[in-house]
């Protein structure tokens, strides 16, 4: 053991280095989140946290499980590709508890013109009217059933009763 005869100071240095490394690793294990680096240079658990956000829009598939009649009317008409919540707004609460959460009816005076008020900016093949001239103030649903808006279509306009909330 001649080699290590005068090496006491080296062992002390090595010991100090080992302690330092251990100390830093300990501190690091407390500071770095557990899932950091699971998928990359970020906290893997963050993905699940973002995914845990509650949904406000139930999705038309959910609506159609109960409102089969409306789904049928709509599928046959011009609004076939317009999803329920495009007009009725987010209804996840109503879907979760249909009896106590009343979704109300959208106000057609605001709703219809959002899409159908004539504007040179809209695509030319999209149906547009100058609402003032077109109806003279008569509510849209007097003639058009919102779920199947073509006049004389399967459902009578009266079935879309109401207009304002």
């Amino acid at each position, binding site marked *: 053991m001649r080699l290590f005869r005068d090496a006491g100071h080296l062992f002390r240095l090595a010991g100090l280095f080992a302690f330092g490394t251990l100390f830093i690793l300990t501190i690091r294990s407390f500071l770095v989140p557990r899932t950091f680096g699971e998928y*990359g240079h970020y906290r893997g658990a*963050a993905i699940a946290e973002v995914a845990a956000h509650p*949904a406000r829009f139930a999705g038309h598939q959910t609506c159609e499980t109960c409102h089969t009649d409306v789904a049928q009317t709509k599928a046959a008409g011009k609004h076939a590709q317009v999803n329920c919540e495009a007009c009725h707004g987010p209804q996840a609460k109503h879907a979760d508890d249909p009896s106590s959460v009343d979704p109300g009816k959208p106000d057609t005076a605001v709703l219809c013109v959002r899409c159908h008020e004539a504007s040179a900016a809209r695509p030319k093949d999209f149906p547009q009217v100058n609402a003032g001239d077109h109806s003279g103030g008569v509510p849209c649903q007097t003639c058009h059933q919102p779920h199947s808006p073509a006049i004389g279509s399967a459902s009578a306009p009266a079935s879309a009763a109401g207009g304002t909330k």
Partner: protein
Amino acid sequence: MNITRRQLLILLPAAAVAWESVLAGTPEAAPNYNMTDHWWSMLIDIPKCIGCGNCVRACQAENDVPDGFFRTWVERYHVTDWNLENPQVISPDGGKEGFPVAKEDAGKYFFVPKLCNHCADSPCTQVCPVGATFITPDGVVMVDQKYCLGCAYCVQACPYGCRYIHPTKKVADKCTLCYHRITKGLTTACCEACPTGARQLADLKNPKDPIHAFLKTHSVQVLKPQMATGAKVFYNALDGSVR
């Protein structure tokens, strides 16, 4: 209660292990969802957009986006043929309540819905000093709001202006591509609310997704392709004047 030194030395590590598992919590399970099976993108069909603002309102309702901030918004371009390079662009309140009626004139009008492009090689994720923003294995760029410092470096780095500092949380906020919905088999809130189908969520890893046929048969572009961000929001019939 008397605890000897030996008992304490045994108890301490046990308590540490228990505390760690409490801290870790139980992750939200998304049954039957496998991240590696998806690569999310979006298709925007400009000729179908009518500028109703449904997507903007839906996004704000779905994601609690504060007033005056937008994860998605709609711009209206007005391009005149004598000044092609300088379009007039408006986006009143992000297009949330629609747009003023446009009169027919010499120029052309069209709407451009915008949102995070969920870039495959995103500048925003590269600049984050702490690893608080990243792209998930299924191709969604998101922010870890518990880890974000709010330095806003990513807000400046995004070439599309899709990020903002949340006014109350003081951390970066952006479109998550409705990750909480798409992992449960729903489409995004903006796509759900779009009345004309101008926005379509697409999964590039799903061979049955209609996006593949669409990309083959249409003139599709991404925004700012010269920046090589690997943007995954595809625009059909995008005008050259769009920035």
